[in-house]
């Protein structure tokens, strides 16, 4: 079975045939064994040994943790990928212009108002979590179309905070 693994914005094709995998143009003997009583799995890739914590999110979503790095990966097979390609780019994505809270926290201050034009990197919202104030910034230039939260409000991870529209050129 051929899989396409998306990791850190890159897509890596991995072909799995029994205990052999082909990746990046090379074939290896590979074995993944669960470590009993832990969320860990031990990977032997050729003679390389690596322990990774793995958690399934269902539907091909996997969260991997290795040396303190937490990575969300997606694994799809060829058929699913093909169907997705036909559906067109961006299909299934929601609110491309929304700035979402990367963590649960408390809104301390709003730095923008609807209608305001912001540059890339401009501060939008100050969020407090773990006693630290964190400034959330715009990824690109845009115009603020909506501010969806108010100071003092508690927000969840992933909650939309601000909506930005791309600047018309």
């Amino acid at each position, binding site marked *: 079975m051929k899989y396409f693994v998306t990791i850190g914005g890159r897509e890596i094709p991995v072909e799995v045939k029994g205990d052999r995998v082909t990746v990046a143009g090379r074939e290896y003997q590979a074995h993944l064994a669960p470590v009993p009583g832990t*969320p860990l799995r031990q990977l032997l890739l050729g003679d390389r040994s690596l322990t990774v914590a793995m958690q399934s999110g269902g539907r091909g979503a996997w969260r991997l943790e290795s040396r303190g790095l937490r990575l969300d990966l997606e694994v799809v097979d060829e058929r699913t990928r093909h169907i997705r390609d036909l559906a067109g780019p961006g299909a299934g994505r929601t609110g491309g212009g929304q700035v979402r809270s990367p963590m649960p926290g408390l809104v301390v201050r709003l730095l923008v108002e609807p209608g305001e034009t912001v540059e890339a990197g401009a501060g939008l919202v100050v969020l407090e979590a773990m006693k630290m104030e964190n400034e959330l910034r715009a990824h690109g230039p845009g115009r603020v179309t909506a501010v969806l939260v108010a100071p003092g409000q508690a927000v969840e991870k992933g909650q939309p905070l601000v909506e930005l529209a791309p600047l018309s050129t």
Partner: protein
Amino acid sequence: MPFRVLVANRGEIALRIIRACHEEGLEAIAVYSDADRLSPQVRAADHAVPIGPSPPSESYLRIDRLLEAARRTGASAVHPGYGFLAERAAFAQAVEDAGLVFVGPPARAIRAMGDKTEARRRMQAAGVPIVPGLTVPVTDPDAARRAAAELGFPVLVKAAAGGGGRGMRVVQAPEELAGALETAASEAGKAFGDPAVYLEKYIERPRHVEIQILADRERTVHLGERECSIQRRHQKLVEEAPSVALTPELRQRMGQAAVAAARAVDYRSAGTCEFLLAPDGSFYFLEMNTRIQVEHPVTELVYGVDLVREQLRIAQGLPMRVPATPLAPRGWALECRITSEDPAHGFLPSTGRIEYLRVPAGPGVRWDGGFEVGDEVGLHYDSLLGKVVVWGATREEAVRRMRRALEELVISGVATNQAFHLRLLADDAFLRGEFASQFLDRRPDLLAAQLSDDQMTALAVAAALAEDEARAIRKPVVGDEIAATRWRLAGLWDGLRG
């Protein structure tokens, strides 16, 4: 009546203090908020008392509840740890007034040092060099602008009651000043209950070097320096002892300045004088931290002194067990703070349940942690999960040992800054010891999460194999699977019959 110590803290420092109590043959009393019912401090202590809901303002910061817990359990002394109420003179005073021993300096020493502007005046009088700046707090932006213009930009806005980087802002230009005052005052108000901030000249490219002090009724000694230059947003991440920047002669001079600072306020117990060390070897007293510090273990490893146990002895009126002859550091110690901050997402706090923990072990490695498997890492408390501390005969050996230890450490369930530490420990400038306090500001490459192609390939294969296996389990095909299915069907029929 046994000497009982109430530990008014949580996390790794609470456990550290409880361990020291037990090694000194003393009983330890833990306190806990609702969120900490099963925390390691409760499990390790001899007694445990609930002190309220999870937010610190309703539990760990409640002097009345802590004193009530002390009264109920017949405590003889209270150890504040660091953070929370550790540097609140009112707390030390309340403990003293209740007839208990505060494991730390007297309330008046905390008061004298805690008010940074007052401390500066006293240090100046005692002949300890200080950074040029205002000696009174500032609130009015216009007055601040005038003062800043006189000092010359950049200036540092700093909480008068602060420490640990909260309520601190570097201001490069006049137009940034008003905003920085507001943010710093707001953070200071929240973190310390006092929004007062003051201004000082910002020394560029200094090292952050601090001197450990220990004082009993008879003597005040210094136990050399700790180098704390590797900081992110004024939060220390890596500390070491000794510092590559100090000669024995400079160590002696800075040590004497720190001892003079401590004597000027009639200090007792463990404390730390922070200095900025400029590239030309001149140094400036910043502030005295009137508590045990997060990074105290590196001093312990190179001086062979257990600072927390000495604090407990001094609190009992016993002399400290530090020889009268000046000590010299032996070998090299490093500490890496492991925090639940995600380097892949700009070091934002990460939350979750600890699913798995493997702590590093082996020669020369110490783990001071404050959580166990099953613990929730929430947003109420500090993000420090634990500290990896290593000792080596040389700095190079200590760095290699730290790398080995960090590769052994596995924390699953929350993202941590472990990968950042591994990148730092492989960096040439760090290995040469060529860094100053703003090192990480100039090296964003070290903060950004990076995966090598090799790592990416391996992780992709792991995910593909796991997905492949999960799919195979979902569709039963041959042999055992069919047998298992028959058993399930048989059970189903039984159920229908029953």
